[in-house]
């Protein structure tokens, strides 16, 4: 896949179709997601993050690879496991952690919570916590782009468990029939909540093996390698922008944590987590950068900068007040209030 960096000279090798700048961006994004998610977990243990939370630890390469292939104006739809994709669009860490902590400085000032991160100005048109719901919604956003000729592409991220709910199949057919500029991305982390996806699915690859049913190409990629994810994403974006319709991409990955805050993931076979951690996307990508001749100092500087920003964001969130009480009834309707009668 990669040119041989040793024979080309490492610095020349990095400037392939992906390029050094994009690779450094993807590394920074992965580290930012890792550090932010780890911080969210730590804040749980301090009871500063309330409710529930679904982390993307171990799945960072999917978010980074896709974000690096997007253009400004492209739209993202996420699930409740959506912190990673929200951060990857450039949403400030403080806004994300603030929402997880349900403070007034959060993305939605605490009204949405961890499962509903939304930042319209960054193209993140919501995180959806009813499995499969956002695939049809993404179709509608893509329909608007097609109808108005606006050129943007919509991406919709979801987990392997989503492939067995009706809305998945309705949306795939809908998008294919109307050739909508939308990309469906299945992050197959092997478990639908607590149950191995293979135990409850008729095919080996829950998304890709269904692609043929909608006239789509079968695409399975290594979701732990940001370069591979980026190339698959770039091809799908190019296809959609050219008016050639939707793509369905299954990214093989693994979550290092449980399904949610409540889940210690005792159901994993012994050794499985350790095996996947050997292919930790950040470890893998750090090694890739080294092979390309990026200096240890440059890598360390990225990591230190991210940690500093996560620390700063954490302190700002701890100091932030809860949302003001008048938000309780705000924005039910477009007039800003909740009046249902005169």
């Amino acid at each position: 896949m990669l040119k041989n960096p040793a024979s080309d000279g490492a610095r020349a090798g990095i400037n392939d179709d992906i390029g050094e700048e994009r690779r450094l961006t993807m590394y920074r994004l992965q580290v930012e997601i890792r550090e932010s998610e780890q911080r969210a977990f730590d804040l749980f243990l301090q009871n500063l993050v309330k409710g529930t939370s679904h982390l993307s630890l171990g799945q960072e390469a999917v978010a980074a690879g896709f974000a690096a292939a997007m253009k400004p104006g492209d739209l993202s739809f996420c699930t409740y496991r959506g912190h990673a994709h929200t951060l990857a669009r450039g949403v400030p860490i403080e806004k994300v952690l603030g929402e997880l902590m349900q403070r007034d400085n959060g993305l939605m000032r605490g009204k949405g919570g961890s499962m509903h991160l939304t930042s319209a100005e960054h193209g993140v048109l919501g995180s959806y916590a009813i499995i499969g719901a956002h695939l049809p919604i993404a179709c509608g956003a893509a329909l608007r782009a097609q109808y108005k000729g606006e050129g943007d592409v919509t991406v919709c991220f979801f987990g392997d468990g989503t492939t067995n709910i009706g809305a998945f199949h309705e949306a795939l057919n809908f998008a294919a029939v109307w050739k909508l500029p939308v990309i469906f991305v299945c992050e197959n982390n092997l478990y639908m909540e607590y149950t191995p996806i293979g135990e409850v699915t008729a095919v080996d690859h829950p998304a890709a093996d269904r692609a043929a049913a909608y006239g789509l190409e079968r695409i399975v990629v290594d979701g732990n390698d940001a370069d591979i994810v980026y190339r698959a994403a770039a091809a799908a974006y190019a296809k959609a922008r050219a008016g050639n319709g939707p793509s369905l991409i299954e990214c093989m990955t693994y979550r290092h944590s449980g399904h949610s805050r409540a889940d210690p993931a005792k159901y994993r076979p012994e050794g499985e987590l350790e095996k996947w951690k050997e292919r930790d996307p950040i470890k893998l990508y750090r090694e890739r950068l080294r092979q390309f001749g990026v200096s240890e100092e440059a890598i360390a500087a990225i990591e230190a900068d991210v940690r500093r920003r996560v620390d700063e964001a954490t302190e700002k969130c701890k100091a932030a007040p809860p949302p003001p009480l008048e938000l309780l009834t705000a924005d039910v309707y477009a007039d800003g209030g909740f009046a249902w009668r005169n």
Partner: protein
Amino acid sequence: MAELTYRDAVARGIAQEMTRDPDVIFFGEDVAKAGGVFKTTVGLYEQFGPKRVRDCPISEQAILGAAMGAAMTGLKPIAEIMFSDFFAVCFDYIANEFSKSRYMSNGQLKCPLVVRTANGAGSRFGAQHSQSVENWAMMIPGLKVVAPSSPRDVIGLLAAAVRDPDPVIFFEHKSLYPMKGEVPEGEIVDRLGSASIVRAGKDATILALALMVPRALEAADKLKAEHGIDCEVVDVRSLVPLDTQTILGSIGRTHRLFTVEENPRLCGWGAEIVSIVADEAFYDLDGPPVRITTPHIPLPAADSLEDIALPTVDRILERVRHSMEG
């Protein structure tokens, strides 16, 4: 003034809004080339073309989800769900998604869409194609809910719904489709949240919705002619927003309240209104409020059974007379 059917008023209302605003698009099952299974959308495909008037697969979740995504990003979609009973297979969008996204996103997202649907009984279709489910929508914060009873209101309220910045559930009554009514020429735009006094009277207020409006009017005429009871009939028209001023104003004049509801008994819109009246106008009442509803049953197919399930003119008349004459 021209006479138009309620059915043709639907197409005219949609055409009026699509002509006005190129961001209005319309889609559903069999709505384009076939003109709708109730022939409510005949001619729109020919007039506005395949980009704006689209046939969908039998995928109600995809239809409402796509309407939501299009609305969030700048279009003003009108989506049709063929029978309101089918809300049950796409209820996530109605109950969890487009009704809540503005609130959950702290006002970042908007969903200015209209869901049109054929509601109500009278066609002998049985329990899964005949229900009155306006209370399913009424109970969800974030939605607006209207149900016109005349051709003119179909056009005016549909226009108001399309122009409204919030998601609107628009209940057409399938037994009213053949009904004719006077409709003025030119653009008609009504207002959501206004009830209409369709018959003035001094002895009692009868609140009705959709198909129950003409039945209440007929009962009121007979009550006056045969029993000297002079009823005011209020067409509620809009369940959310609810025009409580008009309703409470009428009760303040008549001092008696009857609701005529097609829905099964429990949690019908009339129950909510009776509770408001009990709270706010108890001492205006000269007698107990009375709800006249379909019994709490699934609807039967047989005409002999369906006919007696819904409130009939005779049942309305008898309940009002009995209660008024005590």
